[in-house]
């Protein structure tokens, strides 16, 4: 589904990702961990097509295409979804209006009929119930004045409505209390399907108690320095990143 080979990415001519290899197959959940500033969000943004994030080397394939030429909206319509680490506020735009525009825009692109206001409301209320998010979310302005936790929940709601094929969650679990964490877990587990894949960028292994990943990768200084199964997350939690001895190894690719 996603095949990343020797990916190098620069932002403002500064090399940030320095040779990432990552293959995600349909049905899989991958966790990406790593210290602050290691390039996790950069990887997430480059997948979503953020302008200014330049691929300088290597390849990035999604389904049957090379991703780089495609606009963010084209990627979204092809099923890529990014839950932002820092969701953006759009004042005055009701959440419901935004969700319906986004969903209909994607449906239109796939040749599916648009949902009218009534069908949409029924559909979105089902999603809210499933996630146990309050209906009042729909009528508030998009992320405006939301608390950190509400913003993260809203990202999960968007994911549940848009039903992407590849979802990337960038530290959606950071700073959440246990109830909000469960919302994230419910969203991810509900999305889990044989033809979908999920990448969880996370700091803590806490989320991985609710969502069992197929693979865990450690990103440091722009490279994946170690990959393993969920035990790697537990080990990291117990021993900390220091255990990986990153400083001494950052110049050479780490052999996992």
């Amino acid at each position: 589904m996603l095949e990343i080979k020797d990916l190098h990415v620069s932002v403002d001519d500064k090399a940030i990702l320095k040779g990432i290899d990552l293959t995600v197959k349909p049905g899989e959940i991958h966790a990406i961990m790593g210290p602050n500033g290691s390039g996790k969000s950069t990887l997430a943004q480059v997948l979503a097509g953020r302008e200014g994030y330049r691929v300088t080397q290597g390849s990035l394939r999604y389904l049957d295409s090379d991703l780089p030429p495609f606009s963010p909206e084209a990627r979204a319509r092809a099923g890529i979804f990014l839950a932002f680490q820092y969701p953006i506020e759009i004042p005055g735009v009701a959440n419901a209006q935004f969700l319906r525009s986004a969903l209909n825009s994607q449906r239109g692109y796939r040749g599916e009929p648009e949902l009218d206001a009534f069908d949409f409301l029924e559909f979105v209320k089902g999603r809210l119930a499933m996630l146990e998010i309050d209906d009042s979310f729909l009528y508030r302005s998009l992320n405006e004045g939301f608390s950190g936790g509400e913003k993260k929940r809203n990202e999960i709601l968007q994911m549940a409505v848009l039903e992407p094929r590849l979802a990337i969650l960038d530290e959606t679990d950071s700073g959440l209390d246990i109830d909000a964490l469960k919302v994230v877990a419910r969203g991810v587990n509900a999305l889990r399907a044989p033809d979908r894949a999920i990448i969880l960028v996370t700091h803590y292994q806490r989320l991985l108690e609710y969502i069992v990943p197929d693979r865990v990768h450690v990103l440091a200084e722009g490279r994946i320095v170690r990959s393993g199964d969920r035990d790697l997350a537990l080990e990291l939690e117990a021993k900390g990143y220091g255990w990986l001895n990153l400083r001494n190894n950052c110049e050479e690719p780490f052999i996992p």
Partner: protein
Amino acid sequence: MDNLELQRHLDTEYRWGFVTDIEQDTLPMGLDEDVVRLISAKKGEPAFMLDWRLKAYRHWLTMTEPTWSSVRYPAIDYQTLHYYSAPKTRDSGPKSLAEVDPELLRTYEKLGIPLAERGALAGVAVDAVFDSVSVATTFKDKLEQLGILFCPFSEAVIKYPELVQQYLGSVVPYTDNFFASLNSAVFSDGSFVYVPKGVRCPMELSTYFRINARNTGQFERTLIIADEGGYVSYLEGCTAPTRDENQLHAAVVELVALQDARIKYSTVQNWYPGDAEGRGGIYNFVTKRGDCRGERAHISWTQVETGSAITWKYPSCILRGDHSVGEFYSVALTNHHQQADTGTKMIHIGRDTRSTIVSKGIAAGYGSNAYRGLVKVLATAEGARNHTQCDSLLMSPTSAAHTFPYIEVRNPGAIVEHEATTSRIGEDQLFYLQSRGLDEEEAVNLIVNGFCKEVFKELPMEFAVEAQKLLAVSLEGAVG
């Protein structure tokens, strides 16, 4: 953002720019007392009206164009304009729709304003003003049953001279300002509304202004009176053909709300804005003022200004009656080389008067957008309160927004609050929305509509939808 690609969208054409081919009765160019007399004669006006026009004309001769605003334009030669142009019909005004030239009806249909009374705008009574004269007023009979008078101004002068004489110029005197004086001398038509005591007008009243003829100034005059306890919601829309030369539009609107009366006046202004290089477009110099003449009177102005090369207008409220309320909600958009200097004046005279100002300025391309507002609280206005919110949204590095709030408070107990923000349309906002599948146009529209929401919610439903569409068209690709 890829500027070139975006610029490509910028050149969307003005969709209302066609010219109607119709026989016109036009006075020769130029302005002198004879022209004023001729206009008055053509309308068969009573003597008081001609007197008033002549006084206005003579006063106008002593005045000079105001230069205090931020708009810049080449000098206007008032002798090269036509001051009267009307579609040739049998006589002065239309008696019924059947008498209206079918070509005119087609024009309004093209503009999406069906004048047939069973048309799509059911529930909205329309007065259509083509160049200088009113061509059709719908639902007139139905309104008359309630005692509501809604007719072309020229008809009101003849049918209801006492009302006109009592109220004309009582809010905007003929000496008010250069453009208002000019209008007072040469105005040719407009709408007149009178809502009697205790009557709530059951439908929106609407005037649709269309400039068609070349080199013709348009000077409409609207007078709306809501008698004690009356209510009316009034809507004004306007378009003009695409022409290379600039055209002058200098209108006056006077509103009078007596005790417990309420007038809601909404404008969707879409005069031809000129082309991408700033050629052509309407010069829109408008004086609009409402007088809350009785206790608890309430006047709201809502405007969506997307058209015109130059917009110079300050719909204002005189809060004379105790507990009276004035409101001004405005969205002004300038793209390409458009200039807008718009805002309001809230004059607090009565006790416990309240005013609210919400101004949303959007500047794209090389557009320049200024809010200019005065909140004046006189010593008599015990307990007066004002809240002003001015927000500007810049869509391009070459656009400009300015805020000029003037505050004069003579009563120490008054509460006057002013908030202002300026923001740029954020790349992170666009990316966020695009990453959900919206294309750039959709994302921009969503952000802009969100920005204008507080104003749009003041518009009657169908016009809010219209205003949103208009904004979308005016902004196509305007992010850079």
